[in-house]
């Protein structure tokens, strides 16, 4: 057991990376199964038992297709686009806490989170806002009018919905008083989930998450009825595969962020009862680790539910028209998000903040603390 802490953390990083890819892979399978279920079809059942090897078959197909470069395309950027889409999609899962800490017998404590930063929420937001570059660059470099239109649509859509998303996050931030995703989860560990404090904020965030991941009903950038294939019209082989794969990773990350921010992350009802019961019979260490593992199972259950929700919506709702999309973003979500901030602020003023730290910050500071701030 003489493995240094850094190695453990590296192991967790690798595990998070692998799990992200694995879940994205099987999301493609789940998408087909859910679509088949909702449309009363059989779905994939040829490759392996229950069609479980379908993602593998897809990968083989994509890898062996011809690499195609359209004439007049900017070759560097044409390749760079899908790489960027994939990279930005994978970056976001680094700060999501997939569980509390595991404590070993010798006192080593490892977090089930790749990296813990105190600006976790901003990090996710920043990475998400970069995601659109992959689509834009790829669409422009294809030297195709339909691709360009898809890219331009993606840009306008991303910027419009990021605003409302940021506003929804600000309201949440006012409630929690911290940007660290781990601390936000731990607050919900000891109290109610944030969905109780921010129901409106969650709805706004959820709609914006759909728009940011370019999922139906917001998949205007690849709208095949108008734009052939949108930004990936000219893409073939694995470059195309990377774009599609990045979308599923984004869905996974969006689900993870939603369950962390609004649905308690790795906290589950009755965790204190489990902890206390096990502490009495097995000791504190064992109880802590069991609760952590149960918490990890819980957050994955929540994530899977949200991934299913994404698919459920995709196969239920039709696509928006582009002016409807813009009207929804700017004249509905944005004002509602601002209203949500005002209401949240009023509630905090009347009922007091949830977190005592915010209460402390509201009080006028003494001169002593002020000098510390300046120095």
């Amino acid at each position, binding site marked *: 057991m003489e493995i240094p802490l850094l190695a453990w953390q590296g192991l967790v990083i690798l595990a998070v990376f692998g799990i992200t890819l694995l879940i994205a892979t099987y999301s493609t399978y789940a998408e087909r199964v859910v679509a088949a279920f909702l449309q009363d079809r059989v779905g994939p059942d040829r490759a392996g038992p229950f069609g479980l090897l379908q993602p593998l078959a897809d990968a083989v197909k994509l890898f062996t297709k011809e690499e195609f470069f359209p004439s007049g395309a900017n070759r560097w*950027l044409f390749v760079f686009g899908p790489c960027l889409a994939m990279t930005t999609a994978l970056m976001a899962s680094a700060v999501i806490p997939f569980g509390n800490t595991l404590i070993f017998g010798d006192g080593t404590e490892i977090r089930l989170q790749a990296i813990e*930063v*105190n*600006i976790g929420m*901003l*990090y996710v*937001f*920043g990475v998400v*806002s*970069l995601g*659109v*570059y992959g689509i*834009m*660059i790829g669409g*422009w470099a294809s030297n195709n009018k339909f691709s*360009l239109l898809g*890219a*331009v649509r993606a*840009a*306008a859509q*991303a*910027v419009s919905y*990021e605003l409302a998303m940021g506003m929804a996050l600000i309201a949440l931030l006012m409630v929690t008083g911290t*940007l660290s995703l781990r601390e936000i989860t731990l607050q919900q560990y000891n109290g109610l989930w944030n969905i109780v404090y921010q129901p409106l904020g969650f709805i706004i965030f959820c709609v914006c998450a759909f728009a940011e991941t370019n999922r139906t009903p917001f998949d205007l950038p690849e709208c095949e009825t108008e734009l052939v294939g949108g930004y990936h019209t000219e893409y073939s082989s694995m470059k195309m595969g990377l774009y599609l794969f990045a979308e599923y990773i984004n869905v996974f990350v969006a689900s993870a962020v939603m369950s962390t921010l609004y649905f308690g992350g790795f906290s589950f009802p009755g965790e204190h009862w489990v902890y206390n019961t096990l502490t009495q019979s097995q000791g504190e260490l064992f109880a802590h680790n069991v609760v952590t593992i149960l918490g990890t199972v819980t957050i994955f259950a929540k994530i899977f539910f949200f991934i299913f929700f994404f698919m459920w919506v995709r196969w239920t709702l039709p696509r928006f028209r582009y*002016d409807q999309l813009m009207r929804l973003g700017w004249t509905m979500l944005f004002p509602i998000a601002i209203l949500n901030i005002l209401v949240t602020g009023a509630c905090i003023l009347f009922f007091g903040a949830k977190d005592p730290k915010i209460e402390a*910050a509201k009080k006028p*500071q003494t001169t002593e603390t*002020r000098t*510390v*701030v*300046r*120095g």
Partner: protein
Amino acid sequence: MGTSLFYFLAFVALISALGVVFAKNPIHSVLFLILTFFAISGHYLLLNAQFLAAVNIIVYAGAIMVLFLFVIMFLNLNTDTEPHKPALAKVTAAVAGGLLLLVLIAALRNVTPVGADAATFDSQIGMVNRLGLVLYQQYLLPFELASVLFLVAMVGAVMLGKREEGERNF
């Protein structure tokens, strides 16, 4: 490690900033500018200003440059369609740039770098809560004035973009 990281980031920032100026294709210029912002955000992180680093990425790389790219893609600027710049404009640009360089050199000539004292240095100085407290207590008035300025600019943009009576574009 901090020093070598600093030199690496400075190298990236300078090279990509030069790329912004020298790139023939405006799209490449924008992409180089985004890379510059990333290098500068790296510098912020080295200075322990995490919030500033994140906001720099979100606002500049994530929103403003997306809009830049958006507009440039629409304009479809090529070397063929680019109008020929007269010699007078080039001379004027060179003189203005030279003057700016002169001012910068004059301003920075006598500056001596002040290193942080490890004993009294507050590592939490760049954290969000600290920054918020300073911004909303010490600099409340300038902060609010800046936000009013943004509001004015926004109202102006909406006024300019507003549809005239009876006008229909689609």
